[in-house]
């Protein structure tokens, strides 16, 4: 459904060229999910910016077939502290000048779906990290996206909240049919959520491995043998990709 071809990204720092990404190519099929993992500073976030159209690659291209709606969840949620939960969720619709009645209806539905009933008039600063994350999900879902791009959505949450929200993210794909692209630094998260896992090496970020992970797509997968063996495989790939730079 969308693909990135031979993309590289460089930005000019004060006195040198900073090569962030080099020769990145992969394709994400409709309704599949792709997880990107790699060491800090390998350009994962930049890769997401390229897909979201927030940055343009210096060479290569990002190609999106059809005219899908893209929802994006940035690191640290990107919620607006001066807007209430309702206003945050409804913002995308407001910007599209959708009528207030429709906005209210969709916002109320999403509040319920995300388990945020009764928190519509709260401000993000009054909510726990897990709840803020669910508001960010709701805001991205409000515009009814075909593709959801997520940048380390669960990184600051405790283990249990994290698993619950991973199940929620999984349901976006399985139930709503949304194509997922996810940046993460957690091996377990990548294996649980990514039907295709891309391992990026250190600066400049280039693709070191691509791991196909066809068994993902079910919450029971988390307890299966194939999940643990995939985690082990991914761990080896990741260690190999940073080998020699960290030790």
């Amino acid at each position, binding site marked *: 459904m969308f693909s990135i071809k031979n993309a590289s990204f460089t930005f000019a720092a004060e006195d040198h060229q900073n090569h962030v990404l080099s020769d990145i190519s992969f394709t994400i099929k409709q309704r599949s999910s792709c997880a990107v993992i790699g060491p800090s500073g390998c350009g994962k976030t930049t890769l997401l910016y390229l897909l979201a159209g*927030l940055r343009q690659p210096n060479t290569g291209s990002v190609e999106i077939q059809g005219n899908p709606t*893209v929802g*994006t969840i940035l690191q640290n949620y990107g919620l607006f502290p*001066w807007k*209430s939960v309702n206003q945050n969720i409804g913002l995308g619709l407001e*910007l*599209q000048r959708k009528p207030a009645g429709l906005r209210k209806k969709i916002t109320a539905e999403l509040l319920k779906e995300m388990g945020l009933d009764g928190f519509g008039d709260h401000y993000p600063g009054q909510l726990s990290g897990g709840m803020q994350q669910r508001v960010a999900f709701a805001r991205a879902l409000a515009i009814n996206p075909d593709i959801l791009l997520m940048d380390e959505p669960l990184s600051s949450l405790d283990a249990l909240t994290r698993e619950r929200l991973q199940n929620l993210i999984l349901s976006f794909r399985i139930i709503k049919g949304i194509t997922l692209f996810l940046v993460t630094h957690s091996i377990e998260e990548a294996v649980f959520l990514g039907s295709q896992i891309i391992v990026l090496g250190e600066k400049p970020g280039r693709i070191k491995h691509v791991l196909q992970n066809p068994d993902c797509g079910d919450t029971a997968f988390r307890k299966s043998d194939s999940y643990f063996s995939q985690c082990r495989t991914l761990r080896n790939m990741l260690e190999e990709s940073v080998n020699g730079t960290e030790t």
Partner: protein
Amino acid sequence: MERKRNIIIAALVMVGIWELAAFLLNTMALPNPRAVVSHALQMVSDGSIIDDLLISCTRAVCGILLALLTAVPLGLFIGAEPQWRRRLSPYIYLLYPIPHVVLLPLIIILFGIGNFSKIFLIALIIFFQIIVTTRDAAKSVHQNYYYAMQTLGATRLQIYRHVIFPSALPKIMTAMRISIGTAVAILFFAESFATTRGLGYIIMDSWGRADYIALYSGIFFMALLGFFLYLLLDIAERRICRWTVVH
């Protein structure tokens, strides 16, 4: 509630100090607060002060509003548009440290001795206080917020409305607090000559006649005016910037 109680206690302590000082100094130049307040109340009940109070209040409020309506949009624009910031900031840098109050003769030559000159002088001086703060606040908006808006497909104008302006608001409010003190001080200066109406005139006129009770009554009303504006701002801030106070 506790805050209100503490404000009342502070007010009583200050009146107590005034009373004590008046008793100890025993001079005509510092009448005791009871005499001043009873004279002030009489000026209210016989209506003699109402005209001057209203005209001073109008001049101060118009000056503040004029500054606000020009400095806030311009400050947001200069802060949020890097190219314009580089071009226009030198003007602020050069003009800000000039004591604008010395421009009064020029203002009178241009606009005459009517109300507009006084309003213009107040506006001119607090314009700079507000524009500098607003510009810096707009400049410091986190990149993530821009990205979040872009991913939702926002136009530049929508980014101003939903991100740049609301995120700068708490700092604009702080600038306003400082400006109110300045506005009342400039009001006194502007009303101290070439006028026969307003609290500044009352103070200067009473001083000339060595009527210290009337002089202090004028000061009392001027202080009351500043306090009233401060109170108004406080209420406005609680309503407009609710997200900064709820936690």
